[in-house]
């Protein structure tokens, strides 16, 4: 038994608590005591314990009741039951509920030593199991894409299948659903995995800047082009190019990219010499491209070229069964990053989080958990830790689409800044060109 553990001794008899306290201290364990089941639960609420020694017969809440609560609320904590009323029934019941072992008072010192050896062995096995499970998940799953809903299971099956081909992929999904993560997973599973993965957000760049970024330019072709620069289409050589918000690119850029996809050649700005390129294209959008085709803003031939394989990533509200799993993942992540021992969410808070609509999808959920972990004073997050979510507008009789919300928000900011596009774009943290595009697309006008 070389591993130091955090142990809590729960017994209503002070002499027993003291005896075990001093015994475990001799092994260097971190020991605390509680005189009742209620006190034990209070302490568990504040910080985790790896092992609990619990007396069966206690006034108020008996050891079996405490064991049941611990196994439900804190399944990682192991429990050894101590009883002076050594009936086979109570021991069997305790073991059935999930006790790791039991001892009949009084016991020989070496019996306790043996129990500790067994606990240590169980802990080692659990650690190995968790480690191997983690390794297996890394092999069969994809980093940071969490889900066990049928929709996500389908995506997990699709990723390795589509990764084998070079066909263009179009990822559809609302903002924050994890389109870039899926793109990265496809790249990681493809034969191009050891080559670059380059992601460009088309919505964040003006047309000319995007052209320069993608195709590169020669020295002196425009103001500021002090030296020649290779475009991402060339730099990516052999890897995967991920174009996010593809619905934002201009018809001219659509023609240019269509040509590249067909000829596998590019000509940088200011040059006449075409260069061979080899990349796999993954595009993504949160827009309805079909609508764009109908109104003429999106080319049909380009749409078919980028949409050889389409993967639709469902919004979080349509896969609410994944919410507990995602919360658990983010608690682990931010607990580790902030070194705070926050690892639980109360049942009420979990219900609230499952009911919430998550317009910002997984990204919003991640931010909510991060904020709650950073500000939390206890190891358990409750409803009050997510109060900021409740302040969001109540659901309307007809839910607004993301586009409608975006339109309303842009209109509001523009009015706030008296339609000064420079100031409004700063407030929205997008560039002016994008804001102009959005004003045009949403047909926004100054309110009289």
């Amino acid at each position, binding site marked *: 038994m070389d591993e130091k553990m955090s142990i809590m001794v729960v017994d209503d008899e002070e002499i027993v608590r003291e005896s075990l306290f001093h015994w475990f201290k001799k092994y260097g364990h971190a020991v605390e005591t509680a005189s009742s089941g209620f006190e034990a639960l209070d302490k568990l609420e504040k910080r985790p314990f790896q092992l609990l020694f619990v007396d069966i017969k206690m006034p108020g809440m008996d050891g079996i009741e405490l064991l049941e609560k611990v196994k439900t609320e804190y399944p990682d904590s192991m429990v050894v039951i101590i009883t002076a009323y050594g009936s086979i029934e109570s021991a069997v019941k305790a073991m059935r509920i999930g006790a790791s072992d039991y001892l009949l008072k*009084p*016991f*020989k010192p*070496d019996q306790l*030593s043996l129990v500790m050896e067994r606990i240590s062995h169980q802990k080692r096995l659990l650690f190995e199991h968790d480690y191997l499970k983690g390794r297996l998940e890394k092999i069969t799953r994809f980093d940071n894409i969490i889900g066990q809903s049928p929709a996500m299971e389908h995506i997990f099956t699709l990723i390795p299948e589509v990764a084998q081909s070079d066909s263009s992929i179009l990822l559809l999904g609302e903002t924050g659903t994890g389109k870039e993560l899926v793109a990265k997973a496809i790249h990681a599973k493809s034969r191009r995995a050891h080559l670059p993965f380059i992601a460009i957000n088309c919505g964040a760049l003006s047309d000319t800047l995007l052209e320069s970024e993608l195709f590169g330019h020669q020295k002196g072709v425009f103001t500021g082009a002090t030296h020649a620069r290779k475009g991402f289409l060339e730099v990516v050589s052999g890897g995967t190019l991920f174009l996010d918000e593809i619905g934002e690119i201009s018809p001219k850029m659509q023609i240019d990219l269509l040509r590249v996809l067909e000829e596998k050649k590019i000509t940088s700005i200011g040059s006449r010499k075409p260069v061979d390129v080899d990349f796999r294209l993954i595009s993504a959008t949160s827009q309805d491209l079909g609508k764009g085709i109908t109104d003429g803003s999106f080319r049909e031939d380009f749409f078919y070229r980028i949409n050889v394989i389409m993967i639709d990533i469902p919004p979080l509200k349509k896969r609410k069964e994944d919410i507990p799993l995602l919360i658990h993942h983010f608690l682990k992540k931010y607990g580790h990053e902030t070194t705070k021992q926050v690892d639980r969410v109360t049942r009420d808070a979990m219900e609230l989080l499952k009911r919430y609509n998550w317009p910002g999808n997984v990204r919003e959920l991640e931010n909510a958990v991060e904020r709650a972990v950073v500000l939390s004073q206890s190891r358990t997050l409750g409803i009050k830790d997510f109060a900021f979510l409740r302040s969001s507008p109540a659901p309307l009789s007809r839910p607004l689409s993301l586009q409608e919300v975006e339109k309303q928000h842009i209109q509001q900011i523009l009015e706030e800044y008296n339609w000064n596009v420079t100031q409004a774009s700063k407030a929205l943290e997008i560039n002016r060109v994008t804001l102009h595009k959005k004003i045009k697309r949403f047909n926004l006008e100054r309110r009289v």
Partner: protein
Amino acid sequence: MSSQKKPVGVVPLGDVSEIASKVIAAHISGYFNLSVQILPPLEHPEYAFDERRFQYNAGIILKAFESMRFKDYEKVIGVLNMDLFVPIFTHVFGEAKQGGKFALVSLFRMGKNPDGSPSPSSLIFERSAKVALHELGHLFNLLHCREKKCLMHFSGGIQDLDETPTYLCRYCSTFLKDHLLGQSE
């Protein structure tokens, strides 16, 4: 290692053979290099007798020691012939609080070999000395050691005790030296 200002006291409780106290004192002096004094015997600790268990409660005797203070001694080890217990355990060979001042050693269970046959007195004294050194180790804050060939390895029974050496492993020995040096500074 002998840098402590006050000696360790060995105090017999009730009817304990003089040789037992002397052997324990000699082992403390020899293995831990500490100055030791054998104190005049104290009365038989009738106050700690538990009528239901027919054993003596080690916790009660240690509490009584606390009220006696023994201010001229760095640590005090009580030696007695009676069977000791702490409430959760059936029995203990000895008892000490981690980092405390007082410890107890019982000779009661030292007289029988694992097969039930009687042990020679030399072996009884050797076992008692090992328990005394082990408990004294706890008083100097040494923890139970996972190294089987170390005095601080936990012994659950007589067989374990016989297999445990009278010396500390390198790690525990260094820890004890550092602890004693820290105390003397």
